[in-house]
């Protein structure tokens, strides 16, 4: 992790208001290059909103933030070229084939024909989807779909990849494989920003921030958190913090 300590995401008192409701309340943190940074919190704690602001899907109400050294207010278009994104919902086209999906997403990121050809063949080989390449995505098992989604999000070799609860509804075995893929990406230098509400997944991250009611209540490595809260595991840490929550889950 972070030998160079190059800051890829920097947030300073970043807030988002929806009318009177404060979804994200002055959060500040740094994410370093090659790190797997976890965003942990109950439903409605503001994880997704925070992530959307960093991706350029949502304009912050106040505060400062840079992604890949680019200001989120002034250079959202350049940020988009440097990031990959995988949303909560499965986000490939079910009525297109595996290959068509790969080509489409590679295409809209502006990859050249040669790159697209190479990468799609490579990707299909790596996922072991050779036989399914010409089949509709609709017919794939959910686990494979998720893995395909992640691979597609990484296709244009982004500096940072944002994963919004990527493992929802996936069985434990596939989840493990999925995390193997995340590690691979991190090793090859991609910074991973992942939100989750699975506490065991938090252990996989290099550092975690725990969000409660729109605020970051704790930020450290899993080990550090366990020490601070003198807890046996992440569950205990989380429950100690989450007990303070007043906000209802959405």
């Amino acid at each position: 992790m972070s030998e160079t300590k190059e800051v890829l995401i920097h947030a300073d008192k970043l807030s988002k208001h929806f009318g009177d409701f404060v979804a994200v309340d002055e959060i500040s943190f740094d994410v370093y290059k090659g790190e797997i940074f976890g965003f942990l919190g109950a439903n409605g704690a503001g994880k997704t909103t925070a992530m959307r602001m960093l991706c350029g899907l949502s304009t912050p109400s106040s505060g400062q933030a840079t992604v890949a050294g680019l200001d989120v207010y002034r250079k959202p278009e350049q940020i988009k070229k440097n990031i990959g994104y995988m949303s909560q919902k499965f986000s490939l086209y079910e009525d297109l084939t595996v290959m068509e999906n790969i080509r489409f997403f590679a295409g809209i990121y502006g990859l050249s024909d040669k790159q697209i050809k190479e990468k799609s063949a490579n990707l299909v080989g790596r996922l072991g989807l050779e036989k399914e390449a010409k089949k509709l995505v609709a017919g794939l098992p959910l686990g494979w779909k998720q893995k395909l989604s992640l691979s597609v999000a990484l296709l244009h070799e982004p500096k940072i990849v944002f994963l919004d609860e990527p493992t929802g509804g996936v069985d434990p075995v596939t989840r493990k494989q999925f995390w193997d893929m995340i590690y691979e990406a991190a090793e090859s230098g991609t910074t991973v920003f992942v939100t989750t509400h699975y506490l065991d997944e938090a252990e996989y991250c290099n550092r975690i921030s725990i969000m409660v009611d729109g605020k970051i209540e704790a930020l450290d490595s899993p080990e550090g958190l366990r020490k601070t809260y003198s807890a046996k595991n992440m569950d205990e840490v989380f429950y100690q913090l989450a007990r303070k929550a007043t906000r209802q889950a959405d």
Partner: protein
Amino acid sequence: MKQFITFVKKEFAHVFRDRKTLLMLFGLPVVQIVLFGFALTNEIKHADIAVVDNARDMASEQIILKMEGSSFFHVRKMVMDPGQTEEVFRQGKTKLVVIFPSNFYNDLLHYNKARIQIVADASDPNTATTLVAYITAIVNDYQASLPGGGPLPYAIVPEVRMLYNPDLKGAPNFVPGVMALVLLLVCVMMTSISIVREKELGTMEVLLVSPFKPILVILAKAVPYLVLSMVNLAVILLLSVYALDLPIRGSVILLFMESTLLIITALSLGLLISTVTESQQSAMFLSMMGMMLPTIMLSGYMFPIENMPKILQVISNVVPAKWYYIMVKAIMLKGLGFSYIWKETLILGGMTLFFLFISLRNFKIRLQ
């Protein structure tokens, strides 16, 4: 540009993979044209009429011959008492009874005045009026052919000409209507559904996070439906020219240009609907209610706008199909050029800009 083409290709893949919708898109206009053209017409062909010829003289026989010679009627000669006419109508098939009195030709020659009794089944008033008009025309025609030009030396016979549509065919009216309906239906419904579907599936977010410009997403989505609508338009025009014998009197290019304008109107309406709805169902419902009904009811092609209550007449002005319908009729039936329809073009163009402006503004807000 290459990214744009990639996107358009993907949209075409969606369209062609959805066979049912595709079938509906192309089946619908064909079925409508065939139905309206051959089955649901309000023109009269081979109407059953009964003729009671009590005269059996030269004049009555010639008039009957003329009736039989016309494709409007299917003439049955009958013998019956005057009181029995109602009986004939009750059987249902006969639409009209013509009765020649005895001494018909004699009266005509000697008194310069002869009577024909025409009894029509007016439970269907439109048909009855039309049939009576046809019969009257035949009788007048015969009168004019008499030596000396008829009994009255100064007879004034009003000569009615049905301009642009002399046979009072139904087709010229509904073909422009069907065109408007199909173009609107395809473009409004399909565009709104295809955009809302991306929202529903969550793929829209992924697209918005990508460097691909949102405005291009919309343009790329519009392209396949623009192409499909053009094909549809060509099919409708070919059908109406070759199957319904309906000529296009004006410029085909102008017709296609005005249609493109309507298609763009429809696409921007579809876009507008997609910005205010979150699910495919509600997008479909809104397109149906918002487009189909006003188009059918208020564009003037089913019901004449002049006969509507004032309030509906005012409302009809905001229905894009109304203006398109006027223009298509002008081009197809009257053969008029652009100088006659620039006002309608301007109105439709203004509406399009309006819809486009509102929906693009809404679309931007959606991104926040």
